[in-house]
């Protein structure tokens, strides 16, 4: 409990005063302006008092990735984390439990039993149905993101085994166009849901998304209705659906499948909401309450069943799946295929 928060606890030493400490204070001393020089002129380089000014550091833009590929600084507690350990810890800060963003592939790897993930529709890609030309064309955006992420679109779906349960699993990836939901995301998830309904499998969708994809206009909005309709029939067949909300999940995805889970779970600290905080501020001209639109805020207000840290998620899913399939043994899907 009473762990000292100080990084260097004082070593027990004889209670002598500290005679070695010179009476020098490192606090910034008021440096009287040199009367011979105008106040605006910076002190010369060889000035022995340069330690009091830090213009160089302050002027530098703050960059998070310091040397490439080895260490990552936690944005919450500023601890330097060794990348390899961070990866092993599922991208969770070992000091403050801050959850870094995690890609869909890593997420799947962390949840399913080895070699049990059978991906569906891996090659499905988006089409620029509207001929959308904003500042850049939609096609060029798609190509750029496909190159940078190695993904085809913002969701990966498939059938897998978690513990002893076979399940349909969909994992969104924020790295691909902000996890936005266009026709491909809608179609892949709908096929996944339909497959789950058909095979009698429980369904798990891990969401992270900025909402519907603007570039596909109304087609994107219709994906909300499409996925929700598929979920209606999945629910009608009394099959379980768990929705897991990760940072961030907002807008169109929140207003469709993400909030339709039998259980709604969330990662700690995730930003979750319908409208963006800036839009709300601009519309209402009000101060937003502290912690507004976080997982913890929404748990207090009754939307979320439980907040589950990333490294406990697999265990929890297995436990919950055990309960929801106890009544009719859903995992008989195992035998079916």
């Amino acid at each position: 409990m009473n762990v000292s928060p100080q990084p260097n606890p004082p070593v027990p030493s004889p209670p002598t005063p500290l005679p070695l400490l010179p009476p020098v204070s490192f606090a910034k001393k008021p440096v009287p302006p040199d009367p011979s020089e105008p106040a605006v002129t910076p002190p010369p380089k060889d000035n022995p008092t340069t330690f009091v000014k830090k213009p160089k550091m302050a002027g530098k833009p703050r960059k998070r990735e310091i040397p490439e590929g080895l260490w990552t600084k936690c944005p919450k507690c500023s601890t330097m984390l060794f990348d390899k350990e961070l990866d092993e810890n599922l991208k969770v800060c070992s000091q403050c439990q801050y959850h870094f963003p995690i890609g869909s592939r890593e997420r799947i790897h962390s949840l399913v039993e080895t070699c049990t993930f059978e991906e569906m529709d891996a090659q499905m890609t988006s089409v620029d149905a509207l001929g959308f030309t904003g500042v850049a064309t939609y096609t060029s955006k798609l190509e750029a993101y496909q190159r940078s992420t190695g993904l085809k679109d913002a969701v990966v779906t498939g059938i897998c085994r978690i513990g002893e349960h076979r399940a349909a699993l969909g994992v969104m990836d924020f790295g691909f166009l902000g996890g936005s939901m266009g026709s491909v995301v809608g179609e892949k998830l709908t096929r996944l849901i339909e497959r789950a309904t058909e095979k009698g499998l429980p369904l798990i969708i891990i969401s992270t998304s900025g909402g519907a994809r603007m570039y596909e206009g109304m087609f994107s909005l219709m994906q909300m209705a499409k996925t929700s309709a598929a979920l209606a029939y999945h629910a009608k067949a009394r099959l379980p659906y768990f929705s897991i909300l990760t940072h961030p999940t907002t807008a169109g995805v929140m207003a469709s499948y993400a909030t339709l889970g039998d259980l709604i779970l969330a990662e700690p600290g995730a930003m979750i909401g319908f409208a963006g905080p800036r839009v709300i501020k601009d519309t209402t001209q009000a101060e937003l309450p502290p912690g507004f639109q976080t997982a913890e805020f929404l748990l207090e207000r009754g939307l979320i069943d439980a907040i589950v840290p990333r490294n406990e998620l697999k265990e929890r899913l297995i436990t919950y799946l055990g309960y929801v399939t106890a009544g009719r043994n859903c995992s008989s899907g195992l035998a079916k295929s």
Partner: protein
Amino acid sequence: MKHQLDFEKPIIELQNKLDELRKHPETHSLGVSFDEEIKQIEKKLEETRRQIFSNLTAWQRVQLARHPKRPYTLDYLARTFTEFHELHGDRLFAEDRAVVGGFARLGDHKVMVIGTQKGRDTKENILRNFGSAHPEGYRKALRLMRLADKFGLPIIALIDTAGAYPGIGAEERHIAEAIAVNLREMTLLETPIIAAVIGEGGSGGALGIGVADRVLILENAYYSVISPEGCAAILWKERSAAAKAAEALRITAKDLFELKLVDEIIPEPLGGAHTDPKQAAEILRQHLLTNLEQLRALPVAERLKLRYEKYRACGPFLEKPLTASEKAAAPRKSSKRAAAPAATMA
């Protein structure tokens, strides 16, 4: 005349001239007849109107959809329907006046009408929250729709909202969940559902009462995933690019019909619904009645299957990425537009 849009000006000028001439013989009893001039101006007015309204841009239609004189849900309830008995409350938290609902009579049919309602003046707009519903509005809508379903009343949803309300209370009471539940539950309601976009179809806020067997849209209404201003702010970094965004998003009735995202366009009187609300209401009535009779003729299972398939078919995609040679052969922008829905089948 207040509330005129820029492109309406030539019409309004001619109209004023015409009114003046018509009044003239009454005020100056000189016995001079202006019949000839009146006829000419009438002809010119008709022509100007036709010319302007046959070539409206997407942005002009957005402005018409938001026209402060445009008929709202309650105006149609008074004219298109013969009776309306309003029912209130979501039985959970509050009565949301941005959504109205209740029993109504459409021709010989007794139906349940749900609609988003804007205010005509500041006072009413405060009451109606400018037509943007809170979670309570969507939950009231679902309560009334379930009531209708229980007793076999068809549901008519009239949509006219800029969007669901982005406020603190709305978030605290989970507006996203309220909309999502409506989307799921409306899929399974056994009674026929017709949705008509009569003004603004603002994203999830519109879709939240808009899952239906038939989706109709008035000629000058729009239906969009995001407001043109919102899209402009994100993609162009300035709200003033809204006109460009409106064009790019393809949100007009004609665009949506071409993309097979709506089932039918309901024509408006020349000059927009606000120039002749009575006729607009009558046209709406005809279209609702035709569709309702068609839907009522279908067996429940068939109707639900068609409803599911209607949304199931939405959204083009490719099963596999195009190879380099296919890409080269791919049609350019203009023809790609027409070919888009076919890609669904790919």
